[in-house]
């Protein structure tokens, strides 16, 4: 059974005015448990609107969303519980920090869940460790940390709720390459440890190819494609037409093929590229 399923999900903005516009239109999706989904699409393609439906922050104009087979809007008063199961980390989440200490801020979510003190304590420490925050940081004020550290605190605040589905909206926007790799690495590690479902919105095709198992392509308020990384990134021309593109390394191989070289184009990581090139050069054995 899929963990998240949508049926004809539609969301209109400014209903009943001349400015009425569909942010998402007739979206039918099934996301399986344990998947690491990369979400790509243009600004304004409906990504953010879609993910805010998954945890009930936005109410659909039409259609349904199922979490573990249960319609999340069936009982309106239980919508808060849905938010504990589907954790959402917004863009630039460091701007939502407000507590006196890092510890208190991370515990805001678990506290809202009504957990016991010792359970909260365990979760806060575990979440902080997962995102690479040292124990001594916990007693500091979040406002004296660096930008990257603040973001880790904010992500830990959502992870501490131990959601079944974790959605991250461009968690690496504005970070330096090293900070980006570290945060994504931590998220991947978390995914492998907890075997939960992750949705990662990103503009970096390289990151998507590196971490995701599936790719969801949004275009003009609709799902353009939802498939494995290989299947999606093999549609180079289509993605280009959408203005999205494919990972750089895939582009290189695609161009080589266009230029007449007999080579595969399903290459999404530098590691695989190296292996293929060495094979081509007749040194396949050394690649490993």
């Amino acid at each position: 059974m899929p963990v998240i399923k949508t049926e004809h999900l539609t969301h209109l903005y400014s209903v009943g005015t001349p400015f009425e516009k569909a942010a998402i239109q007739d979206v039918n999706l099934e996301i399986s448990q344990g998947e690491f989904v990369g979400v790509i699409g243009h600004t304004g393609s409906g990504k953010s609107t879609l993910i805010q439906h998954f945890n009930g922050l936005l109410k659909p104009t039409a259609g349904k969303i199922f979490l573990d087979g249960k319609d999340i809007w069936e009982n309106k008063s239980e919508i808060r519980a849905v938010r504990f199961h589907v954790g959402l980390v917004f863009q630039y989440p460091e701007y939502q920090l407000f507590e006196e200490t890092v510890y208190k801020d991370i515990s805001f979510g678990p506290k809202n869940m009504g957990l016991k003190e010792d359970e909260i304590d365990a979760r806060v420490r575990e979440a902080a460790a997962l995102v690479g925050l040292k124990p001594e940081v916990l007693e500091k004020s979040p406002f004296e940390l660096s930008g990257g550290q603040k973001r880790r605190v904010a992500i830990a605040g959502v992870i501490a709720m131990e959601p079944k589905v974790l959605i991250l909206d461009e968690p690496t926007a504005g970070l330096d390459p090293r900070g980006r790799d570290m945060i994504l690495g931590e998220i991947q590690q978390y995914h492998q440890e907890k075997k939960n479902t992750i949705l990662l919105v990103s503009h970096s095709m390289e990151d998507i190819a590196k971490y995701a198992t599936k790719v969801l392509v949004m275009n003009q308020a609709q799902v353009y494609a939802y498939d494995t990384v290989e299947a999606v990134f093999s549609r180079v021309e289509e993605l280009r037409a959408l203005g999205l593109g494919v990972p750089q390394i895939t582009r290189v191989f695609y161009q080589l093929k266009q230029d007449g070289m007999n080579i595969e184009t399903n290459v999404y990581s530098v590691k695989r590229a190296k292996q293929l090139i060495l094979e081509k050069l007749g040194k396949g054995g050394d690649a490993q």
Partner: protein
Amino acid sequence: MITDITIGQYFPGKSFIHRLDPRIKIILTIVYIVILFINQGVFGFVLSIGLLAVMYLIAGIPIRMILKSLKPVIPLIIFTSVLNIFFIGGTVIWQWGIITISWEGIRLAVFMSIRILALIAGSSLLTYTTSPIALTDAIERLLKPLKYVKFPVHELAMMMTIALRFIPTLLEETDKIMSAQKARGADLESGGLIRRAKALIPILIPLFISAIRRAEELALAMECRCYRGGEGRTRMKQLHLGGRDAVAVGVMAACLAGVILMNLFLPTVL
């Protein structure tokens, strides 16, 4: 969503009214309010409301916009009308116990309601047809004489401009922070007064911090562009009075004169 609230209700256009000098528009709005209040008879109201209707037609503002601007004053109108009807003495036309209704009371209630409605509709026309920036520009020019009594006119106008500029930004920010805290299970909708007030802390603190951060960034950006107050500052868009401003002033002056004449010569019709 909070962002649906419109503040600074500018309705862009290129009509005669839109292109009037904002200074003239402010002054004429004040004159129009004076006309409404010195007027004593029915004909004056016919004239002033007719003028307003014509101006709205020229400006091309849809009727629902006018209704929208009038909606918030309805409670005020009901309140003043009730006071006027029941507490103004005069020729009694209806009585029940201690409650009396007089002819003068009804007359005053109707006149006052018309005045308030026309006042709001008239001043809304100013904000519908003038962009907030043009408005603060004009205010700065009009208040310029106050400089001689050391009143910080330029600073005040700059503060107004910045405040107007940041209202939508802060509303959007509030919306974002609320969503983020709701995603962490913040409960903003239930509980008593104290619980609700407490629930606002996770929203207000990040909002204040971001407002202060933005203020610092803006101050820095302004200094980088050599801003140092109003002294010797020139403008890209100079305000110029033109022929159409003269026409507008003429029409409003005629209207004022008409109302004064009506007060003098037709004082007792109704």
